């Protein structure tokens, strides 16, 4: 009886969670010249407008390669960091642990304004690599959390066996440790990519005239509610779905990292 009530309440909450994601689909396919609901007819016009506009396409490419570069850099720095934090014992380890997670805790607006101040001085505003560095700071905590969770559940006896059989440390790392960690690496890399691809506050300050996709969307929303945004949103939702499927298939379950 009370279980049924719980299920009914949760059905409404699921609806609340999914409603904004679902509502952009019909609007993106609307034939109306402006935002109208329900759509009077079907058309691909907003997708065509997106694909025909070099500004949108530029912004999309820029976001894609900034996201890719962020993902690579965050893994290169974050994986060794996670190894040290989980396995090494050294002075200041607890402090470093806090520092590595701090970018999640410190409000993004403060980080954005602070890096904006520094980059203005260094003439890094509007450069793609400047954004990659800032996005890497934001992505690092995700990588550390996911890799650290993977390392905690790691069966050390496999490494010990490899070393006992004469494998060097590097060979053990390359042939045993990293392959076994692959699901965590996949999840961490994809989460770092999405966190950069979606990021808007830092981009608002640092991108300058070189728009990323979220910054272009923000500017468009501020000016007018044009259904082109709905088409872009649909594509963004589909991309996230693909990434989540990839994580579910090849990565370490998000359920585990949710703890």
């Amino acid at each position: 009886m009370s279980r049924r009530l719980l299920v009914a309440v949760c059905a409404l909450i699921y609806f609340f969670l999914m409603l904004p994601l679902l509502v952009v689909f019909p609007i993106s396919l609307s034939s109306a010249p402006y935002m109208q609901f329900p759509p009077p007819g079907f058309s691909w016009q907003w997708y065509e407008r997106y694909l025909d506009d070099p500004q949108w396409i530029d912004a999309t490419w820029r976001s894609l390669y900034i996201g890719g570069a962020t993902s690579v850099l965050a893994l290169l720095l974050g994986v060794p960091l996670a190894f040290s934090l989980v396995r090494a014992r050294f002075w200041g380890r607890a402090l470093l642990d806090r520092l590595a997670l701090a970018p999640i805790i410190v409000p993004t607006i403060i980080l954005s304004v602070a890096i904006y101040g520094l980059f203005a001085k260094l003439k890094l505003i509007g450069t793609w690599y400047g954004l990659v560095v800032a996005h890497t700071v934001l992505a690092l905590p995700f990588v550390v959390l996911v890799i650290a969770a993977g390392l905690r559940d790691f069966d050390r006896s496999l490494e010990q066996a490899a070393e006992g059989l004469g494998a060097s440390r590097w060979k053990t790392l390359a042939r045993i440790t990293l392959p076994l960690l692959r699901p965590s690496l996949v999840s961490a890399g994809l989460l770092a990519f999405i966190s950069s691809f979606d990021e808007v506050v830092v981009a608002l300050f640092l991108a300058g005239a070189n728009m990323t996709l979220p910054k272009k969307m923000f500017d468009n929303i501020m000016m007018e509610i044009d259904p082109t945004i709905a088409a872009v949103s649909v594509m963004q939702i589909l991309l996230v779905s693909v990434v989540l499927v990839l994580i579910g298939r090849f990565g370490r379950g998000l359920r585990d990292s949710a703890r």
Partner: protein
Amino acid sequence: MTTRAAWPALPALILLLVFFLFPVVRMLGFSVEAGTLDWYAKALGEGLYLRVFWNTFEIALLVTLFCLLLGYPLGFLMATTTPGWATFGFICVLLPLWTSVLVRTYAWMVLLGRNGVLNRTLMESGLTTDPLPLLHNFTGVLIGMVHVLLPYMVLPIYGAVRRVDPAIPAAAAGLGASSARIFWRIYLPLTLNGIFAGSVLVFVLSLGFFITPALLGGGRVMMIAVLIEQQVRETLNWPFAAALSAVLLVFTFAVYAVAQRFTQSEATR
């Protein structure tokens, strides 16, 4: 052993020091550049700005409360249902979580506007005659923020309910306890840490929220992050923006420090 050494942390440490700690400390330093605390007096003394802090605090509290009210039933159901339905639940929670805040905020503008989906539906069904004011006000910001932050509440609560040994409620039920009694006497006390962790996370994230209040508030709902952005980009008042940032940061850390006294939350423990 190589994988046990401390030095692999060095490149990341350098990145964090140069592009995170240094710029933040440097920026906060602007607030006392003149050698006085005048900017802090302005931030905490003038009614206008004090109101913004109070507003932010009030919104963060309400968002946390609503997230808890919606997040507990959801986390509870997901932790106690069949694996198939749990997966469905995870899709409904994780898909919005990883969808851009911008996409979700735009969608709420479409839903909540004067001629938006909700008002259209309500008026056509005859439930209301005039459009409800849902956008560009407090209500709109609240709805948008609860939607964005709800997953952060659901996940820790799900984890806490999962950790409850199912033999305990089963034993209580066998001894004749009602489901309400099982909830109040077993689940609630055993999942308090999850409730606490989720609430702290949602509250702290709310304090620094920028995109949702900027877009759904329509300039009428001023939160501290929106004020900081204005000071930097419109009035170019760096010292004041720095003082506001410092106050926000102190609030944020204070909430965490209090939370840490109750829970242990080291990532790599």
